[in-house]
Each structure stands twice: as C-alpha cells, then as structure tokens.
C-alpha cells in the first residue's frame, strides 16, 4: 500500500522468481514421472534401468535445490548462514555411501555363506487372489527365518 516504486519493482521480481521456480519444479516432476513410466517395462537388473534410477535421483536433488534455495530463501541469505546449514548436511554423502555399501556387502556375504538365506529368495509363492490367504503364505518363511 505505501511502498516505494523501488520496493514495488523488487516485489515484482520476487513474484517472477516464484513463478519460475514453480514451473521448474513441475517440469522436473513431470520428467521424473515420465521416466518412472518408461522404467516399468524394463528388465529388472538392466543397466538402462539403473541409469534411469540415477537420473531420477539427480532430478530429485535438483528439486531439493530449488525448494531450499528459492522457496526457503537460503540462496539469498548471507554466506555464513548457508555454510552453517549446508556443511553439516555433507555428512549425508558419507552416510549414504557407507550404509548402502554395507547393506550390499551383507547381502553378498549371506548369499555366499548362508544357503538358507539364498534358498529363501528363490522359492516362488503362488499368487492368490485373496489378500488374506497370501499373507499367511508369505509370513511362514519369515517366521521360520526368525526362529533360526
């Protein structure tokens, strides 16, 4: 109501930025969804599928950047504040690498040294129409595994 012309100009730019980021976020989401639909027909352990998953993760990071940077305004804060938020979050790089590597290694070890574990993952369960029936069917090997 009582802002100066300079302020008006500034707020107009802010609205433009909001619109721009909204469009970017929507487009990124649509690309993610297209990739998701495309991925459905791919064979399970193919390199292409892995590459698409990697692309989706990169798009996810891009979306996170736009939300934090523009919607949460972090990009326009001063450098000290950006650093105090972003630097601790770098721990995630290590967390993700270490834990996923560990999980993968655990699976390989079990597949090598635990014949029971390996066998469990090859027994096919016949598909039942009733959800309740198959719940029991599925649960049984689990209980057996836990008991051992």
């Amino acid at each position, binding site marked *: 109501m009582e802002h100066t012309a300079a302020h008006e100009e500034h707020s107009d730019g802010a609205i433009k930025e909001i619109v721009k980021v909204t469009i970017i976020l929507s487009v990124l989401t649509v690309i993610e969804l297209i990739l998701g639909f495309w991925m*459905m027909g791919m064979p399970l352990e193919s390199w292409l599928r892995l590459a698409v998953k990697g692309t989706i993760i990169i798009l996810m990071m891009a979306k996170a950047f736009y*939300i934090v940077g523009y919607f949460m305004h972090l990009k326009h*804060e001063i450098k000290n504040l950006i650093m105090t938020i972003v630097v601790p979050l770098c721990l995630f790089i290590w967390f993700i690498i270490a834990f996923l590597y560990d999980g993968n290694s655990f699976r390989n070890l079990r597949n090598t040294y635990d014949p029971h574990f390996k066998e*469990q993952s090859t027994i*096919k*369960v016949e*598909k039942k129409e009733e959800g309740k029936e198959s719940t029991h069917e599925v649960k049984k090997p689990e209980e057996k595994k836990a008991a051992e």
Partner: protein
Amino acid sequence: MSTTTTVTPTKLWSGGKSPFNVEYGKLMMWYFLMSDAFTFGAFLISYGTIRFSTNGWPNPNEVFKSFPFAPEGVNAPLVFVSIMTFILIISSVTMVLAVHAGHNMDKKKVAKNLIWTIIGGIAFLSCQAWEWNHLHNEGAWWGHNPFLNHDGTASSTNFTNYFFTITGFHGFHVFSGVIINIIMLIMTLMDKFEQRGHYLMIEKAGLYWHFVDLVWVFVFTCFYLI
C-alpha cells in the same frame, strides 16, 4: 518493516552486527529443520540399507496401482501419488506467496494464501489417509506384507514396515504443519502481526512447510519411483 540490515563483509567479526543477518527465531528454525533432516535421512538411509541387503523387493508399480473411486483391479501406477506430489508443490507455492505478501504487509493476501496452503495440506492428508486405508484393506500393515517380490518370491515385512513408518512420520509432519498454518491464519486475522509491525512469524511457518514438501520429494522418489 524489514529486518534486513546491511552487512559490510569486511567488518563481519568486529561485533555489533548480526553475523547471520536473520532474527533469532528464524535461525533456530533452520537448526531445527537441519536436525529433522537428519532424522528423515536416517530413516531413508536405513530403508536403503535394508533394501540393498535383501535379495528381492516388491514392485512399487504393483503395490501402489490403485486410485480412489476407480473400479477394483484398476492398474494406474504412479497416478495417485503424482497427484499427491502436485498438491504438496502447489501448497508450497501458496505458502511462498503468503510469506511474500507478509513482506509487503498485505494482510488480505497473507490470509488468502494461508487458507489455500491449509486446504492443500488437508487435501494431501486425505489422500494419504485413503491410501493407508486401501493398503490396510489389502492386508498390508506393520508386520504384514501381502505383496510379493518382483520375481514372485516371498517378500519381507521390511517393505511395509518402512513404508508405513516413513510415510507416517512425514504425514505427522504435514499434520503439524497444517496446525501451525491454522494458528498463523488465526493470528493474521486477529491482527497480531499488524500490531507487531511485521509478519516474520509467517516466514518461520513457511520454512517448516517447505521442509515438509522437501521431505516428500525424497519419500516420493525412494518409495514410489525407484
């Protein structure tokens, strides 16, 4: 009107200036969100670790393929969850607009955009409630997994445990975000911020709401897409 104080970088450490150039409450909100990010990160990384240590995993396109009011046995993977994603993105946008209107001391616009944000939050929660209810009817719950792996082998209950725990924790955040936004709306309508002379409180609520949207970006990708 505006809290922005000019910072001269050369004399940043000589005292008398705010080193982060934001008010106390906003800085603390950032630190809270950082800790919350670590909580969600721990959940998602734990999910990833278990998934990597398991031989098979259910296909999300088979598990999340239904749609409200659609006939039984409809095959519409990704459709419902993409609607949920867009609801959250749009409600995030209206929240930015509310914060922006707050900068301009525009009470009417703040209230209007807050109302849209609250509607978006409630819509998202309703979608999640429908999805949980639907999965529960299919026999999925903590400790129960009716779904099979990609290759038709028996799947572990880890899948449903992680799904309900993480989406539940996120849904709880959305719920508290809606409550916070309702409180902000009431305070706006009661002219609290006009009396204070600034709408900084809306900014803090906005930060929290955007964080909720941010977490959904990760949850959506980890559970539904890959």
